């Protein structure tokens, strides 16, 4: 099923026949989750392409399958479950590092999990996922998040924002060279508002900045989270007895 749809759509999904889909955007998505019921549910929720603009071009149930489907279909966004047979979402991210970094049409990952434990969230974000949403999310929000990820933004749920704040809160007296990894005051403010349940638009209004600025702040946070050095990660994990 995945192969035929993948083949017919081709690479230029953005200019496809989806003009009816509201703003006319199209996005090609691969679903990775080991529960068939859940995949079916998500498919039913977001897969009505003419309304949502989301086209599910492939599905996978474990790590190996995911890697091959992703390399074969080259979707724009992968909805990735964190707990998978064969090594979990982190393993998929590791093995897809090449397609993720591709200059032409990069594949972006959005983690979608029932778990909201800190180690899962931080793990896949450090692995390179562009966002993290929990399975309680509504269909509309999920579609919205997919598009945001496709455009290169990060999707932060309030909970994820909380974890990030927590992770960076312990770096109170860092040496100079770690300054690069710390959050600026503004980024903290943005994260705080997201953690309080504000949408990006509301954050922008609250701080008298544009939505674009909010998004760039959030992306900066994501980059720092991925870049922040091993030392800090170890400390963070040790503080929470994860290691």
């Amino acid at each position, binding site marked *: 099923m995945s192969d035929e749809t993948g083949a017919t759509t081709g690479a230029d999904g953005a200019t496809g026949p989806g003009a009816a889909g509201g703003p006319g955007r199209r996005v090609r998505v691969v679903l990775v989750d080991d529960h068939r019921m859940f995949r079916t549910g998500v498919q039913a929720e977001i897969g009505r392409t003419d309304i949502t603009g989301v086209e599910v071009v492939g599905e996978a149930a474990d790590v190996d399958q995911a890697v091959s489907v992703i390399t074969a279909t080259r979707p724009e966004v992968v909805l990735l479950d964190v707990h998978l047979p064969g090594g979990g979402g982190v393993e998929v991210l590791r093995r897809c590092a090449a397609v993720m970094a591709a200059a032409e049409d990069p594949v972006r990952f959005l983690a979608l999990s029932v778990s909201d434990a800190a180690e899962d969230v931080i793990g896949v974000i450090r692995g390179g996922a562009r966002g993290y949403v929990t399975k309680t999310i509504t269909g509309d929000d999920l579609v919205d998040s997919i598009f945001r990820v496709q455009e290169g933004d990060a999707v932060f749920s*309030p909970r994820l924002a909380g974890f990030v704040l*927590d992770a960076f809160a312990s770096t109170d007296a860092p040496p100079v060279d770690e300054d690069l990894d710390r959050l600026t005051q503004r980024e903290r403010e943005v994260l705080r508002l997201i953690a*309080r349940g504000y949408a990006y638009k509301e954050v922008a209004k609250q701080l008298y900045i544009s939505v674009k600025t909010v998004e760039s702040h959030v992306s900066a946070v994501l980059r720092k989270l991925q870049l922040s050095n091993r030392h800090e990660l170890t400390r963070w994990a040790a503080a929470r007895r994860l290691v």
Partner: protein
Amino acid sequence: MSATARVTDLDEPPVRRLYRSADGRWLGGVARGLAGHLGLPVAWVRAVFAVLVFTEGLGLLLYAIFWIVVPLGVGGRDKPLTVFERTEDGRRRLRKPDRGQILALVALAIGASVFIANLRIDGETGRYVWPAMLIGLGVVLVWRQADNARRDTWTGRAVTHGRGFHLVRGLVGVALVGTGLAVFVVVRGSVAQIGTALTAAVAVLTGIALLAGPWLIRMSQDLTAERTLRIRAQERAEVAAHVHDSVLHTLTLIQRNADDAGEVRRLARAQERELRNWLYKPEGTGGDEEPTTLAEAVKRAAAEVEDKHGVPLEVVVVGDCPLDEKLVAQMKAAREAMVNAAKYGGEGGAVQVYAEVEGRTVFVSVRDRGPGFDLDEVPEDRMGVRESIIGRMQRNGGTARLRAVPGGGTEVELEMERADG
């Protein structure tokens, strides 16, 4: 559910069960256990045993049978009556034995001497009596030892006297039994044969050890494996029991309330939270005791409000600190804000609760996406917001801000300085 059952189990004293008493026993704890079981003074029981010894050693026989059959336990009398409390070794004289016990002791001594005198020691049978008594003494020593070991394992108490003492006692017991057996062999033949007899005994023992050794090791390994399996099975049974108790019941309730979306949501969320707690929290936490840290308190309050009003609350906590008086007040205000948000703003979706500890400041925000309201239009006599939230925060030296945009939801921001550090 199961927890309460277990508690009542423990609370009810096992009155009708017969145990050998581990507390204040002289030998095997038989007399004390019986006394506790029958509700008689222990001295009487001991006296009866002593008297029975006169009748051809029946008392000894009975005592031995009880010792073998009845398990060691914590039966017996309540504490004040124990005489030689947990000191079988040397320190017994420190306690004053009461008259009854002295009597019992005397009776025991007389009984023993009469018993011994009755036997014609110098006669034919006498040759067997002394070895038999030696063996008996050794067996008593070793068995008593085994009892101690068992009691230590199930009380989880550290061994009061070192391993050396146990070892010496065990060895003495074994030596006594060995000597008795050797003497048995010898009295049947002549003294000259003692060397041969001992050599033969040692040879046989070595042979048995060589033959049975591997088998014994295998058996102990099997035992260990069996124990791990059993532990695993128990674990699985516990999981099954929990899933049965909570999850299946909730699913049944959900089926029954399938038409009531709100109720179904409430049940599902409560169950989800409970299961998460059970799966990811270490044992001992999540009980009914009062929360001691801010994060716990926020989550607890949110969970309660969520259960009561059927509106999902999304909680994000950054940092944590112990609760002090001012923070308790802040928690109460926050809870009130959560209740308000759930009651009036729950239609617009999940209520967001955010708490952050930053340095000395504790910040809590409760935000809903309901219709919002105009604070100025709230009648003077409505005390909820003014007293429970704003007033309470101000009385405790904190601040409360209320943002209530008509159509844009309501947000309550509570800020408080911690009392210390």
